[in-house]
């Protein structure tokens, strides 16, 4: 099928960046170590902060580092290409192809995510497990649910990144948009600090935002914080945001399409 082919070629493309990948794994590991010690200090003071114990927290830390690139929290996904192509006008070619614009880039992004999961996802997790005592799921079903959740997280992330990228159709200077998006993503995805640590009422608010779908939901599944029906509600949460965001993207693209036609690309 076409989209599988797109995903595979995207996987291949990103696999050529070996040096960058290795350097990135090193950075992830260094920060993983630093953050681990800070979490150990927090949980020593409050052993059940946020409903986690210290092992949960350490696992969270390393999984979050592992997922930064997979979920492409800021950039590094195929949506970078989109913004560039809008700027140069090449996007006109993409819009007139007899293939879904969104489908094409989403398939590419999933292919890329697969590569990053295997490299910058697995490697820091292994390193973290060697250095610290981490929690691993005992049920194979949990692993499966985790992977599905990661996939959905990538789709939600794609949705937001695509919305930001398409703003290039209307905004000449994207730097503000990108900066805003980066700040929100970094903070509300739980990268800076686990979302469960937020005091109420922020906690509930933050867990309802789309960024919670990036990492907090998959990691909670892994940790067993979400089990049974909670797993399904988590996945449904991610799926719901995916649908909403993709619909918004599609709508925006239709507006953009009209703009491209009017301006001749």
């Amino acid at each position, binding site marked *: 099928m076409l989209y599988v082919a797109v995903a595979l070629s995207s996987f291949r493309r990103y696999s050529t960046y070996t040096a960058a990948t290795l350097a990135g794994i090193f950075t992830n590991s260094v920060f993983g170590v630093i953050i681990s010690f800070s979490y*150990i*200090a927090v949980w020593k003071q409050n052993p059940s*902060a946020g409903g986690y114990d210290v092992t949960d927290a350490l696992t969270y830390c390393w999984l979050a580092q592992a997922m930064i690139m997979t979920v492409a929290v800021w950039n590094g996904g195929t949506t970078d290409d989109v913004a560039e192509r809008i700027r140069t006008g090449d996007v006109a070619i993409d819009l007139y192809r007899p293939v879904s614009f969104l489908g094409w880039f989403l398939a590419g992004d999933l292919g890329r995510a697969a590569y990053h999961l295997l490299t910058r996802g697995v490697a820091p997790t292994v390193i973290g497990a060697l250095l610290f005592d981490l929690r691993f799921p005992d049920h194979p079903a949990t692993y499966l649910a985790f992977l599905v959740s990661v996939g959905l997280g990538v789709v939600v992330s794609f949705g937001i990144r695509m919305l930001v990228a398409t703003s290039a159709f209307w905004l000449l*200077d994207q*730097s*503000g948009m990108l900066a805003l998006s980066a700040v929100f993503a*970094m903070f509300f995805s739980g990268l800076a600090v686990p979302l469960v640590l937020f005091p109420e009422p922020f906690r509930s608010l933050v867990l309802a935002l789309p960024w919670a779908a990036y990492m907090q939901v998959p990691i909670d599944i892994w940790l067993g914080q979400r089990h049974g029906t909670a797993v399904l509600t988590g996945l449904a949460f991610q799926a719901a945001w995916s649908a909403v965001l993709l619909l918004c993207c599609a709508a925006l693209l239709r507006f953009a399409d009209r703009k491209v036609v009017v301006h001749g690309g």
Partner: protein
Amino acid sequence: MADRSGTRSGDDLRAFTILAAMWIRVSWTYRTSFLVMTAASLVITGIDFVAILVMFSNVDQLGGFGLGQIAFLYGATALCLGIGDLVVGNVERLGRHVRLGTFDAMMVRPVGVFAQVCANEFALRRLGRIAQGTAVLLWSLTVADIAWDPARVAMLGSMVACGTAIFVGLFVLGAAFQFVSSDASEVANAFTYGGNTMTQYPLTIYPTEVVKALTFLVPVAFVNWYPALFILDFPDPFGLPGWLRFAAPVAAVVVCSLAALAWRAGVRRYRSTGS
């Protein structure tokens, strides 16, 4: 850091100022973008402190230090890194200059290459980190219970000066490796930005070996930790000698000397291998 064959530091400083001023003027012509980027830089770097605040909604102290004292550590390291990044941050683009040939273009001008590399694309938006670091530091001075005397005030000034110098040295050391391998930049970041992140927290949260490494190997502990022990009047939790509190200038000199040597060696290597 002047090139050996003949520039004087005064000349280089003058050229740096002229070039940096030009870049500031250019970014000011795109005013809104510049202000947005500076604000963004402030918020992005400030998120680390918001994370600490969130942690403190769950605990009262970390590693034996209260929020005000941690704010002191955080503010100091952010300020020092911020100034260092502003002044020499662009040196990490060295690999790109070599690759694109702009390094050669710099070598045929009557100005030291180091000054040119640092001034190139001078990014005033980095004030964002400096601003939030200063704000947190000032706030910490109001809440932490410090027994001010002339020695402590002097230590505060020394802390900012030496801390900045240490980060500057680390930036340059990391960049000098790009003469040998262009992939070195991300590894170098782990030392500079990693060093900054580590020193946001009291070093009591790390094992003793790590603290010793941060004292004698990659001396970022001198940026804020040892001066803080003196200013906040804490006994050394690891039983390390008390004179370390006053050794930040030594650390700064050592790091910067190594950095200068590494840079010169790098330029020499470039001039004898042509790449």
